[in-house]
């Protein structure tokens, strides 16, 4: 154990935490909104579109994250280039940092997983709730916003929390496409003097602390939302 190295490298690894968190938050925010839309489309049984999203969700859920990352990393620059030349702009793809491609892959994956969570949560809300809302003159949109979503969200939260912790772990895979997040930074720092043990023990500790923090935060929020949940199981 080389404690000198640990003392020197720890701040540098810690400095990479914001990159990991950026990837996690960005893909969770966008991915979950997409997931909610997909869930509503599939719930509404809109023909063709809902089948297409069904296939999308099944594909995204069964293909490993690494492959998604590679596909996004190799395809996106081409697509952006082509789109640019179609609208008459020459976009320099090389200035786009790889973290963008990583976020893109992560958010598609999150969209697929969270759409299933939202779908089951919305189905878990009693149909009578919606009918009651409509009967007192709410519009369809209002019934969703005021009655169904708060209850569905309370049911979905435990699953979303699991999903988010999984996402934080999955950001470590962005290492493959050259994003300098926690794992890649530790790998880089450990190379010159082969301090693998020290570097990865520090990485493990950081990930553990992150997962403890997020678990605690979600548990707090779950307690807060309990008031919506009690009435569900009437």
């Amino acid at each position, binding site marked *: 154990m080389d404690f000198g190295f640990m003392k020197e490298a720890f701040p540098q690894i810690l400095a990479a935490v914001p990159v990991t968190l950026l990837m996690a938050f960005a893909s969770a925010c966008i991915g979950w909104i997409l997931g909610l839309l997909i869930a509503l489309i599939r719930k509404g049984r809109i023909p063709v579109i809902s089948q297409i999203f069904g296939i999308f969700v099944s594909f995204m859920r069964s293909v490993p994250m690494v492959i998604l990352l590679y596909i996004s990393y*190799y395809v996106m620059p081409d697509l952006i280039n082509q789109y640019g030349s179609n609208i008459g702009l020459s976009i320099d793809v090389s200035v786009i940092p790889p973290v963008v491609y990583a976020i893109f892959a992560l958010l598609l994956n999150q969209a697929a997983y969270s759409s299933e969570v939202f779908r089951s949560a919305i189905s878990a809300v009693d149909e009578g709730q919606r009918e009651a809302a409509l009967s007192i003159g709410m519009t369809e949109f209002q019934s969703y916003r005021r009655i169904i979503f708060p209850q569905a969200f309370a049911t979905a939260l435990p699953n979303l929390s699991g999903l988010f912790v999984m996402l934080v772990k999955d950001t470590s895979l962005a290492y493959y496409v050259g994003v300098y997040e926690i*794992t890649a930074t530790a790998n880089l720092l450990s190379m010159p003097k082969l301090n693998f043990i020290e570097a990865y023990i520090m990485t493990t500790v950081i990930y553990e602390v992150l997962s403890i923090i997020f678990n605690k935060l979600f548990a707090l929020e779950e307690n807060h939302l309990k008031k919506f949940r009690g009435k569900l199981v009437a």
Partner: protein
Amino acid sequence: MTYHFENIPSLIMSILQAFPVTCEILVVSLVISLGIGCIVAIGSLSENKTLNKIAFTWIAFMRGVPTLVMMFLLFLGLPQLMTNIGIPISTTNKLPYIIATLSLTSSSNMAEMMRASYLAVDKGQSEAAYSIGMDGFTTLRRIVFPQAFGIAIPMLGNNIVNLFKETSLAFTIGVVDILGKARAISAASFGANKLETYISAGIIFWAICLILEGTFNVLEKVYTKGRKKATS
């Protein structure tokens, strides 16, 4: 850049040559992780406070650490540590490292699965078994386990699919599994068909996951048919 998507079927065939390796990783780490999971589940269900603490710490720890970091820790770190204390271990055979990584990280999911399905069986079932004179082990074998197994099937299917997806990390340390083979093919053509190769690998994973899911759905239907729902 032009893509040749018509090559995908032939690419799939050549990538599938590496399927036995992936299968080996999956099956061996599944068996080991079920074993570890069983021990941890017993610990988490026991009345002993220390055992309980150890089991829950294990579950929380293994859930928090990314598989990739675990793999680096075992493949790069462990040999170094062992050499330092005087027991050099070789890294020429890489399969044991990926198997150990996957067994450890998925053992927490397996333990949680076993714990949840054991607790889902009504307590009255084992009490009834005791009342007619069965001992602890017979009760577990004849009454609790068959019911818990039915509850565990969907979760087991899910865990196996996740484990199968994580085997794709094996290429990182140089094992030629499905993704490793795909990368070799892509490198042999100097990256000209990398998109097609990765899509082919993705299709293989998708197909196998669908087969696994289908199998477990059928298994659940067949197994729970005619049995009373244990959760009632």
